[in-house]
């Protein structure tokens, strides 16, 4: 995935430390998506993906930062969202992206489902933390 992080400015950020913060982050993404001209279905998909990834970050990464910004690239406009935590990392990213696989007690669809809900999805994980970046284009 192209590195949209730098071009996506000004970005809004939300610190996620409690499940209430996940709701705050979700609302921020929803507001941006509405302003960015995404349709209702796209908005809902993006917000749901943000909810999944935000909660994953909280539950498995011990919280982190959500950064979101409007984006325009090659005539398209969209929303970029980045989730960065400093947790222990995901040992096997491929496995974690498998439907139905969970290391906790969830449904095991959060990460894989979020990937299906957005247009671009990138995950980088190591012992120093995990960063997930997603983009949803307005069409």
């Amino acid at each position, binding site marked *: 995935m192209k590195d949209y992080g730098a071009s996506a400015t000004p970005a809004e950020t939300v610190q996620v430390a409690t499940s209430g913060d996940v709701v705050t982050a979700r609302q921020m993404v929803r507001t941006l998506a509405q302003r960015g001209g995404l349709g209702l*279905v796209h908005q809902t998909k993006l*917000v749901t993906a943000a909810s999944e990834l935000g909660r994953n970050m909280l539950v498995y990464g011990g919280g982190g930062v959500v950064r979101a910004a409007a984006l325009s690239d090659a005539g398209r406009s969209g929303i970029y969202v980045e989730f960065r935590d400093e947790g222990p990392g995901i040992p096997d990213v491929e496995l974690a992206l498998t439907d139905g696989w969970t290391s906790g007690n969830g449904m095991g669809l959060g990460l894989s489902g979020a990937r299906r809900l957005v247009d671009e999805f990138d995950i980088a994980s190591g012992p120093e933390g995990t960063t997930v970046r997603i983009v949803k284009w307005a069409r």
Partner: protein
Amino acid sequence: MKCGNGGTSTPALKVRAGRQIEILGEDDVAIESSTRLLAEKLTAERETFLSQWVRTIGEDLQGRLSMAELGRELGELYEAILQALGTGGLDGRGERYGEVRSLLIELSRNRARQGFTPTETARSVFALKEVLEPSLTGDQEGARAYLQFARLLDDLGLLTTEAYVRTREEIISSQAEQLLELSTPVVKLWDGVVGVPLVGTLDSARTQVVMEKLLQTLVDSDSTQAIIDITGVPTVDTQVAQHLLKTVVAARMMGAQCTISGIRPQIAQTIVALGIEFGDIPTNASLADALRQAVAEVAKESENDARGLL
């Protein structure tokens, strides 16, 4: 707030109880004399200072608090500060200021509940500086005492803000609890049919409340049909879905049929993309459809009853 003990400055020796020798820095000596000066000043001009203090704050609050009450509050506070000064020390977080702190916390709590701003609350303390300023800053020793007292008042002012915020947080969390109760009503829609209109975010705590209420209402109203309406739930992610599924399974275990209604087009598409399967749980786009089906089910059951089949 502890001042440094002088470091490289010449220490003054003080002999106490015969053998014990304490080394005090210049600062400590200065604090002691300042404290004494302050205590004397505050005792001598008690009436003037207190009435001026009450008047200053009274003007700020513009009659939103009765002068009599304000006078009583500040009078108590004044006495407590004076007493703490008399026993020595200017450390607002120290043991000697326990009484002052508890009075201030009480004051902040009242202000927070009555809707005053944090600034207005902290001003109650800071105003005492203005009152003391003209009579203390005349000479050098007085000015030093004033500065040290101002430092103490700054600390106490911060304390009121802390207490104010804490009270506000308590109010918010108790309201959140009340909201939790309010936002999850279980209503009887028809004979044998109960409904739960869910609004807002569905987390574990709310699911627990919904589940408990729904199961209890099913028993109390002798119902066999339950409808959970999620029209007011803006985001259905895997956590919400999991909570919904658990509630449905629990209702089924009690012999009730459970329908989820209010699935809007965008929610349906999102659920499919996420890969959540609702299995054989009946779902509907609108509450009206769900109710029609539930009523039909109830009617079928009673028909069977009438025929004497059951």
